[in-house]
């Protein structure tokens, strides 16, 4: 899932400036299950902002709505009337959701209520950890299902480095060394010999370094008859 966390209420209030009519829009997918921007969080934030505005002596009209997925225009269209009616849209979607609103509704002023952090998973109740860096050329088949790009601080393809100490990364004793995890897993699976192959430099053009990415599936596109 995409993992995000809410901005502070002070930052949100700054983003809203002096808008009188605000729509808080939640997303029912990734940010719902990481408790950052689902219907519950949207309702709580809208209520908190309403009370804050009352206390500050300039009551605002703040409502909330949640769509199944902010990253698809068809779902956003279901809230089109509310979006068009608001002075500011406070999106509790990830960065994709915010931009989907901006693209679909050219006249809407949309601001983010979340900081989008990473793609990851919950490792225990209340803890999420990064697992995928969307490098565009998956190497998990070489490393026993542990990603050296996302889980090694240096994204090394031939690790570990000298900063690995007792299974932890030198950047933080709470961060496991990605390459120690890879080594331990390969050893357990009896596949250590696979790590003897030295991996050549990765083609980072397939990652963000190559610029904005796009996938075109001709088999799925709708071709209009001429």
């Amino acid at each position: 899932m995409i993992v995000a966390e809410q901005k502070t209420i002070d930052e949100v209030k700054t983003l809203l400036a002096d808008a009188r009519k605000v729509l808080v829009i939640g997303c029912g997918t990734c940010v719902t299950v990481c408790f950052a921007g689902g219907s519950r969080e949207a309702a709580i934030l809208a209520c908190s902002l309403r009370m804050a505005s009352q206390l500050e002596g300039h009551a605002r009209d703040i409502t909330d709505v949640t769509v199944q997925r902010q990253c698809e225009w068809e779902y956003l269209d279901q809230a089109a009337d509310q979006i068009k009616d608001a002075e500011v849209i406070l999106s509790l979607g990830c960065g994709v959701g915010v931009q989907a609103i901006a693209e679909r509704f050219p006249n809407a002023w949309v601001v983010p209520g979340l900081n989008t952090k990473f793609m990851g998973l919950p490792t225990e109740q209340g803890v999420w950890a990064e697992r995928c860096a969307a490098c565009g050329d998956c190497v998990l088949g070489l490393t026993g299902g542990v990603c050296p790009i996302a889980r090694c601080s240096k994204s090394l393809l031939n690790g570990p480095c000298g900063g690995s100490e007792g299974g932890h990364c030198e950047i933080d004793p709470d961060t496991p060394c990605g390459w120690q995890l890879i080594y331990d897993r390969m050893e357990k699976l009896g596949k250590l010999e696979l790590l003897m192959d030295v991996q050549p430099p990765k083609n980072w053009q397939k990652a963000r370094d190559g610029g904005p990415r796009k996938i075109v599936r001709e088999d799925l596109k709708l071709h209009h008859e001429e």
Partner: protein
Amino acid sequence: MNSDSTLIVAFCCEHCAYAAADLAGGLRMQYPSGIRIVMLPCTGKADPLLLLRTFEEGADGIMVAG
């Protein structure tokens, strides 16, 4: 602040605190009119949104009893 104009909403668990309030009523015990008792099936239902909305609607205080 006048105790009669102070609005306190008491969210009471159906299985314990609400029964206690019921008993207090049966015994004709008096309490300020500003106390409003709301029965919940369980105080686990008293989530942040319920409490925030209660304050937003004008409560001066909230009591969760269960």
